């Protein structure tokens, strides 16, 4: 048996914009064991519920992560609304759906860029991020913020989108579609990308299920879990099918994300057609008394916000289970047996969001 050596990967590593630390135990060039260490971004924001009122806390919940920001605030307020039994106006529900799909588009484009960069495909990184700016422009025009929107509140949303703007947004997305098609052709059919992704880092369906993979990591292995199908916000009134791939390798996880972008555009289009007129928020009095598990589908998978209140302005407990945290055990399984040179690519295929995972 050859000698084992341990190579540290991170926390400051060129391929990761965020600090994730992995101790890779190597035998020659093969990874035989992986020991992840987290805690570099831990802030302890869940405890802030004791210092902030539940309505102010929406801003903190949104800042759990700057990429999935809108969906975090949405999940949190949905939990509060369920406890308080609020009937949120339908228009607000549709607007939330539109913005959450915009977040998914921006997150997937961001990921495609970073992923291309991890393979050394600099020009595709630039192109993906160029397209992402169109999405961010629309987000900024409708919410006021590029990455942190601050538009969700308990009982509705802060801003409305005019019908003209909605038309313009849908037309913009339609116009972007062929550029996205070009981009997806690179990821799905390019020879060198296939060479880097096909058959690398295979996660079997059983492993994905047993280890608790969520989101595209699970759907890439044939586990069809998509929390949007539970019909929160306006998803219950929209026709869509979760994208599922069956190979379980890096290529499948990448293909899921590429195809999901088109699903998102389709959902936004349907929302723009079906959105009813009416108010976008309601008056909220009192405070939450009770507990609730609020679930939503983030770009990275299922997120759960556990909220417990006792009828006072400050909540008793807020606990978040984020998709990246549950995707770390599958990641460890994926990395065992791979080549050292494939580590950055495999780490990126679970789309790690450390800001979420450590809070």
């Amino acid at each position: 048996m050859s000698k084992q050596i341990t190579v540290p990967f991170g926390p400051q590593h060129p391929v990761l914009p965020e600090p994730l630390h992995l101790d890779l135990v190597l035998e020659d060039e093969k990874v035989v064991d992986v020991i992840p260490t987290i805690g570099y971004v831990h802030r302890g924001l869940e405890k802030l519920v004791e210092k902030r009122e539940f309505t102010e806390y929406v801003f903190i919940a949104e800042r759990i992560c700057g990429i999935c920001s809108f969906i975090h605030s949405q999940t949190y307020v949905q939990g509060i609304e369920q406890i308080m039994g609020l009937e949120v106006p339908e228009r607000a529900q549709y607007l939330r759906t539109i913005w959450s799909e915009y977040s998914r588009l921006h997150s997937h484009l961001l990921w495609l860029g970073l992923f291309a960069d991890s393979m050394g495909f600099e020009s595709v990184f630039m192109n993906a991020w160029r397209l992402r700016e169109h999405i961010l422009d629309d987000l900024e025009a409708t919410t006021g913020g590029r990455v942190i929107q601050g538009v969700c509140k308990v009982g509705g949303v802060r801003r409305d989108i005019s019908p003209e703007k909605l038309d313009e947004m849908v037309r913009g997305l339609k116009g972007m579609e062929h550029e996205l098609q070009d981009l997806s052709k690179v990821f799905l059919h390019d020879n060198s990308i296939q060479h880097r992704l096909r058959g690398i880092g295979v996660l079997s369906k059983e492993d994905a299920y047993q280890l608790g993979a969520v989101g595209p990591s699970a759907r890439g292995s044939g586990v069809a879990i998509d929390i949007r199908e539970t019909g929160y916000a306006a998803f219950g009134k929209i026709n869509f099918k979760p994208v599922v791939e069956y190979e379980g390798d890096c290529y499948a996880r990448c293909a899921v994300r590429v195809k999901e972008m088109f699903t998102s555009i389709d959902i936004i289009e349907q929302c723009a057609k079906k959105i009813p007129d009416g108010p976008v928020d309601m008056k909220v009095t009192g405070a939450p008394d009770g507990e609730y598990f609020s679930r939503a589908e983030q770009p990275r998978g299922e997120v759960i916000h556990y909220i417990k209140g006792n009828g006072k302005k400050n909540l008793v407990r807020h606990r978040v289970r984020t998709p990246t945290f549950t995707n770390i055990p599958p990641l460890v399984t994926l990395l065992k047996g791979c080549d050292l040179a494939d580590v950055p690519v495999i780490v990126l295929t679970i789309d790690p969001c450390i800001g979420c995972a450590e809070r």
Partner: protein
Amino acid sequence: MTYLAKSPWIIHYDASSCNGCDIEILACLTPMYDVERFGIINTGNPKHADIFVVTGSINEANREVIQNIYNQMPDPKVVVAVGICACSGGVFRECYNIAGGIDKLIPVDVYVPGCAARPESIIDGIVTALGVLEEKRKNRVSSPMVTDHDHKAHHKHAEGGAQ
């Protein structure tokens, strides 16, 4: 400052940011904002870097990493704190694991406010840092070695400040 004599390279570290500022820093490198026109390149190696761009605030786990990166950078070097968390702790300043802004640990030259900081303001901050860098180069300013001893003193100061 009307022209640049050198191409400054930056190193970026996410201290305990929410990612918002980090993806805006990356957005600066892409075609829309394109800081490469100033000769700025994002490097992963502290020994290649002139400008240290930090997002997020200090916590117990990343103290040592920030010190390591700072100490390894060659002189002259400039530190840019991007985002309100790096400046003062921001919305997280009352969290139990947050010791405050980056200036509690290493000397900061430029502060870029915002939550999340916009790419325009990040570029403005980095261009301001270029001026500081040029100044330091002319005057041959050498930066202090940040040690463990320092950080304990800073830490006490931080605790005192919180009370």
